[in-house]
């Protein structure tokens, strides 16, 4: 059984229909990539899962448990960590306070045992900035903080929305290494990306979205080896 199962969801923003009968699965320990152009529905898919934009129909289950109708904080407490595209750090709080507000204070759901120390181990640079207001961090530092903050909730599945967007190439490489380390701890991930290079090493499987529908699904190896598909759906 898949760890996360999204089955035939239809999601709307107001009256506009964004996702059409969208299904995908993520197995435990797997890194699955959602690829597609801007507006293809990647962000909406992640927001449907965390519950920020609940689907109108279809079902989403985590480890067999239904997430339908749950408030985002309930979904988060079941072990889904959401890393938003716009980072959305709390700029008026220090780095340490950003981690503290996201600390797991509930006992239900499964987790990987994340603590502030382990988070700082993964992002040593953040440890030296712990007293700084998060609003004064650089873009790369803020991206690290967003991921670190979500890890504090001790998730078993991480939803990452375009983590490499707007970052300098060197920072992107660093981030890729950190995500690879996270993967090696057994953390399951669903990553929305436009930067294929960024996820080609990290990802196990690929879904390509177009106009709110799944257009292609396959392993990362198949996808990388198939230039035709890349050109047809992503127009690099």
């Amino acid at each position: 059984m898949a760890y996360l199962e999204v089955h035939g969801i239809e999601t709307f923003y107001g009256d506009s229909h964004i996702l059409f009968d969208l299904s995908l699965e993520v197995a435990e320990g797997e890194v699955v990539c959602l690829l597609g152009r801007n507006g293809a529905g990647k962000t909406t898919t992640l927001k449907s899962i965390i519950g920020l934009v609940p689907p109108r129909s279809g079902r989403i289950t985590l480890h067999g448990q239904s997430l339908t109708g749950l408030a985002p904080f309930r979904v988060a407490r079941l072990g889904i960590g959401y890393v938003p595209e716009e980072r959305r750090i709390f700029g008026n709080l220090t780095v340490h306070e950003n981690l503290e507000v996201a600390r797991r204070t509930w006992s239900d759901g499964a987790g990987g045992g994340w603590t502030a120390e382990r988070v700082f181990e993964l992002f040593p640079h953040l440890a030296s900035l712990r007293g700084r207001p998060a609003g004064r961090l650089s873009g790369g530092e803020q991206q690290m903080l967003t991921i670190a903050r979500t890890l504090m909730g001790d998730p078993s599945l991480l939803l990452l929305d375009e983590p490499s967007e707007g970052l300098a190439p060197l920072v992107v490489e660093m981030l890729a290494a950190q995500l690879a380390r996270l993967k090696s701890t057994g953390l399951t991930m669903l990553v929305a990306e436009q930067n294929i290079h960024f996820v080609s090493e990290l990802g196990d499987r690929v879904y390509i979205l177009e106009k709110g529908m799944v257009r292609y699904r396959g392993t990362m190896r198949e996808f990388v080896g198939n230039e035709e598909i890349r050109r047809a759906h992503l127009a690099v």
Partner: protein
Amino acid sequence: MDFVTSLFPWITNGPLIVVQVMSGLSVAMFLFLVSVGMSLIFGVTRIVNLAHGSFYMVGAYLMVTLAEMLPDHPLAFWLALLVAPLGVGLLGGVIEVTLLRRIYHREPLLQLILTFGLILVIGTLVLLVWGPDNKSVARPEALAGSVKILGQPFPSYYLLVLALAPIVAVGLWVIFYRTRWGMLIRAATVDREMLGALGVDVATLYTQVFVFGSLLAGFGGALSAPTVAVALGMDGDVLTTAFVVVVIGGLGSFAGSFVSALLVGELQSFGILVFPAVSIVLLFAIMAVVLIVRPWGLLGHPEE
């Protein structure tokens, strides 16, 4: 200089100025207690609670009832000062859970109509329970008289207010900046949706903040009861001034409420000496200037 002293004869009277400053500080304390709660509630829930002055009034009226009910004992006053705010906090909690919770996602106009309606409902209930006549609360015996400060008389009860002010200010600072609850509140003023996505039960946080803000207003009302005639119109008076304080300081800013309450308190205290006729106008003139120069208030942040 002669011109100035002829216009403001008190300006060379050092002791009078000192006493006036102290009286301004105690006014500031009352203003701070109301406005910080109002600002806090707005910062987290984005609701402008017009009924906040009503909570202040209920705090004062509860003080009246408790003073009558409790046996004549030196500690009775202090017990009342503790219980009255708790009663107001409870009232705030009931209102949040039964009414406000339904309208967080609605348009601001609807929220204003609801909290304005609460002013009328609470005002009428107070009239039904306590009647139309003004009430008064006796000051505790030890603080009933006045002391001489540099030869000027100063009511001793205000010394209590002045002594409590730094305790309240430091206490709130510790809560906001040194506890996890305070961090959650500050984070919620920036991005409530994200906080929820991180596993924080924001709905419960809203209730807690509303109860806490109501409790502070109730404490302000209870503490002020022995200094004023407890009357039906005090909800509106308090709301108006608290609103000015919050707007000048910046909606949602703790430090802003603090600085602005000091400013407005002293302004009211000295305004009466300098321009007795126009001191209330002065208040709104300053608010207008702040709104023109810094629409988000002295220490607030622009809305994104």
